[in-house]
């Protein structure tokens, strides 16, 4: 999540063929990747899909730093393996499904600026839903800045300490409380600015 702004920077600044491709086509491509993940029943098929996505990833010259993000969802797949009774075939099968999904999504986000993605989604999904999605995504950047400042202040003043777990828990909760109050204040200012710019239930994007 911390790399969100970097991901957005890569999507805007890089100029590979995948960056220049229409966002609509890339979203359709992502739908096909998902379709493949859901319908493929054999390991070679999934490996082929993953290899294709990897090839696209490196052809789009996306920094290696971002590639590590594609492995993050494997953490959650581990819990599901306990259901299977540790079957090797099943474990590989699940892992490749996870890797195909995460690589596809990161590929889309690293090659398409988020307003373009929301602009395409706005044509097929209800406007209030897409507006909520856009505002939430936008708000993450605002809150992340506040949260990082609060986190630094707490670390510097010994806010988190192993030997004082209860005090640490209170400080963590206060940090979240602070984040929520600041978020509410920022949302009020955001609404005023939106009204000033003519907002009426829908946000219009640059391409519209």
């Amino acid at each position, binding site marked *: 999540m911390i790399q969100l702004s970097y991901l957005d920077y890569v999507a805007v600044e890089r100029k590979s063929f995948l960056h220049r491709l229409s966002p609509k086509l890339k979203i359709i491509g992502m739908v096909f990747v998902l379709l493949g*993940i859901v319908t493929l029943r054999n390991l070679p098929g999934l490996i082929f899909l993953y290899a294709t996505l990897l090839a696209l990833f490196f052809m789009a010259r996306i920094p290696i730093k971002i590639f590590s993000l594609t492995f993050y969802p494997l953490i959650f797949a581990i819990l599901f393996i306990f259901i299977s009774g540790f079957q090797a075939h099943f474990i590989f099968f699940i892992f490749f499904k996870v890797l195909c999904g995460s690589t596809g999504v990161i590929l889309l986000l690293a090659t398409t600026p988020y307003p373009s993605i929301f602009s395409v989604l706005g044509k097929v999904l209800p406007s209030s839903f897409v507006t909520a*999605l856009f505002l939430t995504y936008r708000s993450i950047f605002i809150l992340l800045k506040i949260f990082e400042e609060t986190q630094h202040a707490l670390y510097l003043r010994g806010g988190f300490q192993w030997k004082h777990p209860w005090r640490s828990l209170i400080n963590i*909760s206060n940090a*979240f409380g602070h984040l*929520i109050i600041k978020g509410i204040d920022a949302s009020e200012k*955001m609404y005023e600015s939106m009204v000033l710019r003519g907002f009426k239930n829908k946000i219009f994007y640059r391409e519209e």
Partner: protein
Amino acid sequence: MRLWEGNMSHIHLPDGVLPVWLWVSGFIVAILVEAILFRFIRKEELARRLPLLGMMGAAMVLGAAVEIVPIAYHVNLTVISGILLGPSLIFLATFVVNVILALFGHGGITVIGLNTLTLSIEGVLGYFLFRFLRRVMKRLTLATFLATFIALFFSTFAMLGVISLGTSHYEKLIHQKGEGIFEFHLAEGKHDDREGEAKESGVNLRRFIAIVLPLGFIGWVLEGAITALIARYIHRLRPDLLH
């Protein structure tokens, strides 16, 4: 342990693991519930509160992304968001949060509908429990703790219910061997052994529940304590927000 890094009521399943009928039903029910809840809120009211919804959604996403280091746990802040947003808006907020979380690998994209249903149980139930318990007990922190604990208890069981609905599908996935590039038929002739193995290797929901429930219990207590402390902090600085 990294497994712990996650809230137990959120289905961290990848795409293609749950049966199609289950996740499609999840989407249909989530959309229907959303459509019904939208009838209870005026258009102007929705437009006015969308930035707040966005901020609370962002706080929930950040809560899920930030690991609390000494205890390696992440909060999801759904109950406090439910208390501040109300039952109609918290459903939309959890829908949006699940879309964003799915984009960053916290559960698959196809599981968004089911995740919205299980997670919004926390928000909606938490809101009503908080209102009721606060009126009965007159104590903010205890009412918030209990509302969060009970809401998480129900949403975790909803998540287990969803997982158990796909049991026959997981069995199919586990036993579809032989088509891969890796060979797993080394003990082809030993039929007796394979039968025993098949029993052992079947879907082990009990093992899964045995892992989830104790971790879940610790999670309910932690989330309950953190939510109660957040409510106390907000009450101290902006008491108007909790009325």
